[in-house]
């Protein structure tokens, strides 16, 4: 299936864009997608952390993605 991943902060710089379309296995987990991203964009390995938010919530690594999910890359936050 095809999912859109939106990026913020330094993740945007690493992707060189606000979002990408990623072709992933159907019923792919968050963990699998993160691996695929790190593989395609090795700079993600340099970050202190990398999380995916799904539908504006943090999710566990074995969360199974759905084609309609709003998927957002969350690099280390630094608000405040």
């Amino acid at each position: 299936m095809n999912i859109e991943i939106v990026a913020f902060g330094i993740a945007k710089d690493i992707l060189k864009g606000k979002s990408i379309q990623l072709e992933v296995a159907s019923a792919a987990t968050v963990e699998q997608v993160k691996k695929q991203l790190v593989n395609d964009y090795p700079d993600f390995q340099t970050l202190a952390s990398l999380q995916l938010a799904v539908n504006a919530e943090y999710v566990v690594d074995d969360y199974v993605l759905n084609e309609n999910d709003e998927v957002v890359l969350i690099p280390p936050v630094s608000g405040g």
Partner: protein
Amino acid sequence: MRSIYITSDKLDSQACTEAVTYDGAGGIVVFVGTVRNATKGKAVLHLDFEAYEKMALKEMQKIADRAMERWGLYSMVIHHRTGLVPIGEEAVVIACSSAHRKEAFQACEFAIDTLKETVPIWKKEVFEDGEVWVSAHP
């Protein structure tokens, strides 16, 4: 009372303080995070904040809910600014009130500590010769 807000306009810590003032409240604690003029001795020109606003508001709301319940607060306000914030201006204001001061201190510190851990907002320090996303790398 809870007030959760993200804006690219100037924050108003006075309005936040007034918002949590209540005749039954004995203690009000306010935290104001301002933009520092230097990081590790290097001059900062300004900060640039970016937020995943929909989720940031939800996470800020969770912080306020947890703090209100855990410390029995009367009210909590969390306002965060985004976009370009000049040196000395307010980037975040957290105000809360409770019957006794100890609870207000603990809740306010919990709120800013948790905000810095969980709320999807990112800060870029802009220097004369470049820019850096804060805390991105270990």
